[in-house]
């Protein structure tokens, strides 16, 4: 037994010089493992009368324990699999290095981080807090501008806050003002955005925003699906699978306005001709952009339609319908988590299309197109 110990130590001396046997009777070793310049104490106990690493146990210092928290099982498994100490130590060292770099990037916040934050929120008013993430690292505050439009400003706090400034950004339509600003405190951020930006600098955006609000309220906006204050593009439905994309320019809201028509050429070209014919009538600045487009195109934009959201779960997963040639979805996937219904005829049609399906008499064995679990169907007469 003693011989093995010495052999192991010699073998590992080069890479792990800080390992010594700690007990005369029991095969156990104490030592340090050096990872990124830090020495972590640990102990390994082997089972009596066994030369391998089977049933070996690893004990570590609190620091090591904290590092490997959550990885104990994998480590124990590895310990049992490894043929030699060297192999295991290399693994352990790799794992610890990885975990240490991870830990470094995620340090804990400053001592008075939370107390400062709470005090500041008290002073600006909790009603301004719109959302925050569980670690309180990112917050969003809501502010109202001169015409009552609500804006969100996004604050991200460094862990060294309040020593280092926080980063604030607001969703504004110009690239220059969307860039993040550094602020000393939340109060500064609120006063900066509510006094300077939202009342003076942003006055010029009011026109653009009112135009966009008008579009959002009176048309069926396809994209973006949740417009932000910084989004200047709207794609709106015209019906018949055609759409119109309007892009406003924040710096010249009354000047250039870019548009683009999407859809089948046969339906789009008459609209394009109307635009060319009527463009010079766009003189009425009392009307909104939407109203001007409606006048030019000689149509009214369809407003939001509610989709007939027929319960997808009762529809056949292949033909996307409920009733198909007088049959209803009469088969479903047996996997409880999937349970996708199919028409027997649709499923049969799919299964016979792919070569991996096996047939036994008139039963077909294949896989559910949704969850890939085994599924069977029988031949249909149609």
């Amino acid at each position, binding site marked *: 037994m003693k011989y093995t110990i010495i052999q192991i130590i010699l073998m590992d001396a080069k890479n792990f010089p800080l390992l010594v046997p700690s007990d005369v009777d029991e095969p156990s070793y104490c030592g340090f493992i050096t990872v990124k310049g830090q020495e972590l104490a640990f102990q390994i106990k082997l089972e009596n009368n066994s030369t391998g690493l089977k049933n070996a146990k690893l004990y570590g210092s609190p620091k090591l324990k904290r590092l490997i928290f959550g990885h104990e099982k994998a480590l124990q498994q590895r310990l049992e699999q490894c043929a030699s100490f060297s192999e295991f130590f290399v693994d352990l060292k790799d794992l610890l290095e990885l975990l240490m770099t991870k830990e470094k990037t995620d340090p804990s916040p400053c001592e008075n981080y939370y107390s400062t934050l709470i005090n500041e929120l008290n002073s600006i008013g909790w009603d301004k807090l719109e959302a925050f993430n569980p670690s309180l690292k990112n917050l969003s505050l809501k502010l109202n501008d001169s015409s009552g439009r609500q804006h969100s400003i996004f604050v991200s706090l460094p862990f060294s806050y309040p020593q280092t400034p926080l980063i604030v950004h607001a969703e504004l339509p110009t690239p220059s003002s969307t860039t993040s600003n550094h602020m000393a405190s939340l109060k500064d951020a609120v006063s900066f955005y509510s006094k300077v930006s939202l009342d003076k600098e942003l006055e010029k955006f009011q026109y653009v925003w009112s135009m966009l609000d008008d579009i959002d309220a009176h048309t069926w906006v396809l994209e973006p699906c949740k417009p932000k204050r910084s989004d200047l593009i709207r794609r709106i439905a015209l019906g018949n699978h055609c759409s119109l994309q309007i892009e406003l320019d924040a710096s010249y809201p009354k000047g250039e306005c870019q548009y683009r028509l999407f859809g089948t050429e046969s339906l789009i070209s008459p609209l394009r001709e109307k635009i060319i014919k009527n463009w010079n009538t766009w003189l009425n600045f009392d009307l909104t952009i939407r109203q001007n487009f409606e006048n030019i195109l000689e149509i009214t934009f369809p407003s939001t339609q509610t*989709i007939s959201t027929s319960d997808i779960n009762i529809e056949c997963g292949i033909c996307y*319908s409920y009733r198909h040639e007088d049959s209803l979805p009469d088969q479903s996937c047996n996997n409880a988590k999937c349970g996708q219904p199919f028409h027997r005829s649709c499923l049969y049609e799919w299964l016979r299309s792919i070569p991996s399906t096996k047939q036994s008499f008139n039963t077909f064995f294949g896989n559910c197109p*949704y969850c890939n679990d085994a599924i069977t169907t029988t031949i249909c007469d149609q």
Partner: protein
Amino acid sequence: MSSSYFLPRMKRELEILEHDPPPGVVCYPVDSNLTRFCAQIKGPKDSPYEDGMFKVDVQIPARYPMEPPRMQFITPIYHPNVDDVGRICLDILKMPPNGSWKPSLNISTTLTSLIILMADPNPDDPLLVEIASEFKENRSLFLQKAKDATLKYAMEEKDSSAQ
């Protein structure tokens, strides 16, 4: 003659494309019998195709959805998985056992996969070997060439006029 499952399926797919399109995609039918669509894909952000608008021809076979849709780039694109005439090498566009098309996919999800392929080329299953090896070995040259091609072919002029 299309099969009995074709029309109900296409009707629903049209609804999906119109009401809930994949982000950055406009897709509309080109003919009245729903066998041909035109998709316009905005080049994905942080890719060399950014700011470009790529037209894709989508053909729906009569046995759809038992067979995959056929998709082909109309706008030239410099990409390891797309050849000179716009044919696309994407496993979900092929039938099993070589491909992985399933009727649980649809035009919308297939177009989403196409965007992902644009953003993240697959050089291990290339259609154009030279571009694939360039992508692997000389990324900056690839990015430059892809960007140049985007600027050359995919910058469709927007209609614009003074108000």
